[in-house]
């Protein structure tokens, strides 16, 4: 690692995922942050930071997943982030996967909405994530996600 700024790809789908990513922003201070989300109107939240808009794939339909995966892979190839940080869901899953494959370090912070079990994307994201976090202590386990605190 050099003395320069670190390039972070910060990824979240809409609603609660995006709000939770915003609450992590103090941890990004001083770095070069590139955002990826699903709604153009969120641009107002990030000031002058670059922001990519991708399609969401909440219904897990095959075509929208393929389209989303291709788009995220393209963004990762183009931006070459040092680090990927995501609060989910589907866009975050592809971001940690392609991020990891491209040599970035990756962190998945599972949504606080998942109290009783990790989200489906969260469970699958574990193998692609250097840092795999849950926001509920009861869900932390050895070999599984860790608990370090919550967005609240």
């Amino acid at each position: 690692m050099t003395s320069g700024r670190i390039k972070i790809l910060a990824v979240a789908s809409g609603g609660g995922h995006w709000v939770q990513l915003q609450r992590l922003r103090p941890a990004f201070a001083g770095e070069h942050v590139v955002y990826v989300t699903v709604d153009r109107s969120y641009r107002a939240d990030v000031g002058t930071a670059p922001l990519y808009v991708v399609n969401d794939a909440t219904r897990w339909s095959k075509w929208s997943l393929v389209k989303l995966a291709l788009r995220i892979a393209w963004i990762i190839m183009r931006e070459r982030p040092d680090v990927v940080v995501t609060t989910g869901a589907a866009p975050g899953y592809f971001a940690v996967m392609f991020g990891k494959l491209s040599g970035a370090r990756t962190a998945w912070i599972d949504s606080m909405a998942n109290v009783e079990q990790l989200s489906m994307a969260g469970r699958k994201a574990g193998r692609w994530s250097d840092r795999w976090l849950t926001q509920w202590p009861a869900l932390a386990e050895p070999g599984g996600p860790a608990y370090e605190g919550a967005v609240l």
Partner: protein
Amino acid sequence: MIFVTVGAQMPFDRLTSCVDRWAASCGSGDVFDEIGNTDWRPAHMDWTAMLDPSEYRQRLFEADAVITHAGMGTILTALEFAKPMVVMPRRGDLRETRNDHQVGTARALAADGRVTVAWDEHELAAWLERLDQVEVPARIASHASIGLLSAVRDFIRGPVTPAAGSVAGRLGADDDRQRRRAA
């Protein structure tokens, strides 16, 4: 103003129609509902399908009380503004979400005293009659817990190099971390 919102992903007519029935009977006239993409139309309150994020924050900020599904976006933002909030979780068995995660969210946050939960539309109707008794929650900060921020910060900066010293102190916990590593 009573602000009702059910998020952008899918409608939640069981909640919004319950509020509409209440608005008809009490005639309060000061209810605004973001109903989502649905064919159902409220008859007794102001509504829109979707607000843009800044309008949404403004409505939340101005609200006297918030009626919502158990979505983390609304809950976190309403807690930032310390708004009294009645939450009715979506149910998986009624196909209001893919699973019952909102029931778990509601239960956990109610146990922490963050939200008031209406488990069904009858309980929601009862709470609407006594909104002045809904507890005002403690205001939360606009950022995540220091523990989580430190963990994410440590991860982002990665293995310590001589140059990493230059970022010490950006977070309160950074100094401790640097000392620990120096020791």
